[in-house]
């Protein structure tokens, strides 16, 4: 089991610091990306970087690498949330009839979209 395997202190410390450097590099990319590349996919790229950072934290800082049972528990929990959310919100969206009475704001491309209010 990974959490009971102490290994070498220096080796483990070096691993922690390598992950820190990786996370710092990804944080830097987070900051420069909206101004430098793939700017039309900003949020998607940002979330992708977030997922990579989350993987590093979960696998190495939270010692989940090799812990298949806990990973299954976590995955199942997220699945349950997604199912309930999709059922409830999906039903709501599918039955959404009164657009004029909604508070849905204009699309990004619409003129003066940022000031739109209904």
């Amino acid at each position, binding site marked *: 089991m990974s959490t009971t395997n102490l290994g070498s202190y220096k080796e483990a410390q070096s691993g*922690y610091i390598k992950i820190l450097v990786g996370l710092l590099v990804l944080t830097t990319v*987070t900051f420069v990306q909206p101004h430098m590349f793939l700017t039309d996919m900003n949020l998607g790229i940002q979330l992708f970087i977030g997922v990579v950072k989350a993987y590093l934290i979960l696998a190495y800082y*939270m010692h989940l690498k090799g812990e298949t049972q806990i990973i299954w528990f976590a995955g199942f929990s997220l699945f349950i949330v997604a199912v309930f959310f999709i059922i409830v919100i999906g039903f709501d969206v599918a039955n959404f009839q009164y657009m004029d009475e909604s508070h849905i704001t204009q699309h990004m491309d619409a003129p003066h979209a940022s000031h739109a209010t209904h």
Partner: protein
Amino acid sequence: MSSHAYVAEIATDRDGNEHVVQGWQDDMYGAKLGFWLFMFTEVLMFGAMFMTLTYYMMLHEADFVHASASLNRYLGGFNTVVLLISALTMGLGLLKMRHGDIKGAKTMIWATIVLAFLFLGVKGVEWSLEYSHGVFLGLDALQPGNEHSKPFGQILFFGMYFTMTGIHGVHILGGIGIMLWLLKRINSGKVTPEHHILHFNIALYWDLVHLIWVFVFPFYYMMGAGTEMDTATLSSTIEAISHLGGSNEHH
């Protein structure tokens, strides 16, 4: 022998053979699994909030981008790095504990506590700046139906922003509390290199708090980055911080 010292329980089977019963004191996997079950409830709570945020973002994309661009991503980014380093100090503290360096472990826990207070301090500055600009829960800008009201999507965005960063801040406060408790347990000899389950689980909790921030940051602070609305944020940040003390105006 101290009162908490582990004494193995012996069970005898029908043939008279003795067996050591697995005690909770040494059940590392059980303790870890139990704590993960608790953390799942946190994942469920924040997961639901993130999904709600995503849903509203799809309905009010322009308002969300505009509101995000007005947030101070330099302070948010600074806090991201603070949490990142605190995750390292917490991890190194656990590593030192497992290898018998109790003094080093305590130093690392104190470093994590200082970083946690720094995070809260920066968050406090950030909220103060937003309050001084009239953007805070309960102020006119976030109440519908008055002349200062922001567009509905922005009201939703800021409502969720203050709610989620507020709940996250409460978790940081909780983390400080349990780290102080951990120090007390270490000082009284109840957490040792041989029995460090509590330390392990508190380190897990701190990583979870960090993990949540990893998604709070892009969702709230970076959504509006690089847009036309995102100009001169740094200069306005410096100006706002320099005037923070004297400003009580609500616009």
